[in-house]
């Protein structure tokens, strides 16, 4: 493409060093990527930076933030607890919700990927009604977290919920999930897995379809059993798919706020299910500790960065950007 352009510009007699040509290209394409870029720069990156600055203030919602005195007090409080200058009361550190966030992300992502892979392999075995099955598996993904929470709150109901009806049919007593400290995070993770494992399935399915059938045949000729074949030959080729599904699914986990807000009818899911996403919104919007909420948001942002930076870098290395 470059060559052609260069030719064209020389033909029309415009000045033609390669460098300025490049500049011109960027300028000429600017009307296209410029406006969307401005929006993203302002609302995404501008807001992230602003949030970072806010996290250094003492803003508690009255008046406007005082940007004159910035310090890292909120971070000290976030990691060690204590009484900040903007409050008379002690503030808990974020470790509990940080731990829940990590546990939720790992359990949710691991099970989603495993289930998605198994489903993809099954669907890939030349079945009939493939489209129907695929649509059904993907269907929960179309739902809002708010809707999912309504459904699962009902499913978990100790008296009228299907899960407990099943458990009781097996002869066990009703199990309380929703407010049970041992089970509630698991119950949340399970509902999220229900919602998003279909996504992992379609990502894996596409990857499986991308593997040349000669690989399958070669394995068969070697006399490998089906399970062995998948383990030795096929699964190792799904690394890229795993990484891309993992990144998307982890981001979904970070958004679990909507689910918890709907399930527990507000900002207080209780300590066993409190994640950073709920803690952040609770501090800012319920407790009016705006600056402290911003601080937790920065922590969340950094966590997200740890996931996406390696991903984008590896994409870049492979030339897939």
């Amino acid at each position, binding site marked *: 493409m470059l060559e052609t352009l260069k030719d064209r510009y020389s033909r029309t007699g415009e000045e033609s060093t390669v460098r300025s040509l490049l500049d011109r290209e960027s300028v000429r394409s600017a009307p296209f990527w410029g406006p969307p870029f401005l929006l993203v720069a302002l609302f995404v990156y501008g807001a992230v930076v602003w949030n970072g600055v806010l996290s250094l203030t003492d803003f508690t*919602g009255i*008046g*406007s933030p005082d940007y004159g005195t910035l310090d890292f007090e909120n971070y000290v409080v976030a990691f060690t607890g204590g009484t900040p200058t903007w409050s008379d009361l002690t503030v808990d550190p974020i470790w509990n919700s940080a731990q829940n966030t990590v546990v939720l992300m790992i359990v949710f992502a691991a099970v989603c990927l495993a289930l998605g892979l198994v489903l993809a392999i099954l669907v890939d075995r030349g079945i009939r009604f493939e489209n129907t099955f695929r649509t059904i598996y993907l269907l929960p993904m179309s739902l809002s977290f708010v809707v999912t929470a309504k459904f699962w709150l009902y499913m978990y109901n100790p008296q009228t919920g299907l899960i407990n009806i099943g458990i009781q049919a097996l002869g066990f007593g009703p199990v309380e999930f929703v407010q049970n400290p041992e089970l509630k995070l698991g119950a949340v993770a399970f509902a999220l897995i229900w919602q998003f494992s279909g996504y992992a399935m379609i990502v894996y399915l596409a990857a499986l379809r991308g593997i040349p059938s000669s690989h399958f045949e070669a394995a068969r000729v070697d006399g490998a059993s089906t399970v062995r074949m998948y383990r030795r030959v096929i699964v190792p080729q799904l690394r890229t798919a795993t990484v891309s599904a993992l990144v998307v699914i982890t981001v979904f986990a970070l958004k679990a706020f909507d689910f918890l807000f709907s399930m527990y009818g507000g900002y207080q899911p209780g300590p066993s299910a409190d994640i950073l996403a709920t803690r952040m919104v609770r501090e800012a919007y319920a407790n009016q500790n705006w600056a402290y909420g911003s601080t937790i948001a920065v922590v969340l942002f950094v966590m997200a960065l740890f996931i996406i930076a390696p991903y984008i870098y590896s994409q870049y290395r492979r030339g897939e950007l």
Partner: protein
Amino acid sequence: MSGNHTTTRRKILKGAGAAGIAGLAGCSGGGGDSGSEPIELLHAWSSGDGNAAIGALIKGFQDAHPDVEFAEEPVNGAARGNLDQVVSNRLQANDPPSTFQSWPGKTLEKFGEAYADIEGDVWTDDLKSNYLPGPKRQAQLDGTYVTVPLNIHRINNLFYNVPVLEEAGVDPDSLSSPADVVDACEAVATNTDAVPFAQQTSGAWSTVQLWETVLLAEAGIGGYRSFIEGNGDTEQVRAALENVVALSDYYPGDASSISFTEANTMVMEGDAAFIHQGDWAAGAYSGADEFNYGDDWGQVTYPGTSGSYLLNMDSFPYFADNPSPEATKTFLSYCGSAEGQVLFNREKGSIPPRKDADVSSLNAFQQDQYDDFTSAENQPPSVQHGLAVSPGVSTNIASAFSSFLENYDAEETANELVDAFQ
């Protein structure tokens, strides 16, 4: 809230004005000399009895003062927290409304410095002599009158379904302590198919209410006051929590996934014997056909708390930078009148805070409650409903109870509750 902290807030607020935030936001902040500006009243009573009540109040006011204009702004479908959010935004833009629906008491600390003294203008001698000490104290922020309480919902009630208790052989009037309630629940469980104690635990608020009522019963008014002043006795707090733990054996099996209205419906339909709630629960009863006060349902003062009327109130505070100073004061005075309070409370199901109101137009249950109120020795403020503790402490208490609902660990929660003030 320490004096230090409030001064900081005041400075910030003034600073915001100086920086011209109002101009930036394109709002008409400040002003204040024109008495003819319409009253801007923000409230969240967008449906049901609350909407009827505020409608009746405003209509009564406009009949009495046809010259005052109203720009009533219901914040539809909003919870009270959302309303605070809007007021917070408006204050940040130096554009306060005339007044808004707010709990009185310690909740006022949230926007403390934005309020102005209305002693004399609104809080005349008439109001001062006709409000009982409890509500009067709640109208003040650090000793300054800034708001006008409009209604009282009582928290220390025990409602019951008459036929269910008869079947269980329980006489509600014989209960005299929270422990008796537990025994009565056991009798209901043994003798009937009904759920003994209808309670929801999907949100923490019902449990906070129950616990504060039990605390009031067991620790007495002195112990209760010590707690809300931040000097709570861990033993007393723990004992009250243990009573709640004992009661929780008698909750509906799906308490964690039902709402208050569903719990209340269980009582109405004879599926449950007792419910502890504020007297808004009775609003649903009076709306139901063939569910009559006395015959089908009854109410007793929560066992152990006789002589106390545990207060939950709504009020209209006055903002310093008022867009309609004179009109707002006229309106607040009307809210402080027996006439206005009767109009409002007849619809709302609560009772007037004034002791001289003519309550003959209220229903029989409300009249009984009003008698209890005017003869109550103590009118302590509710913890759950924002009167007794500052917003920050309230948050800590809410989070203590969100973990209590998980583990029902009285020991741990008692420590968290006492520490909530630090």
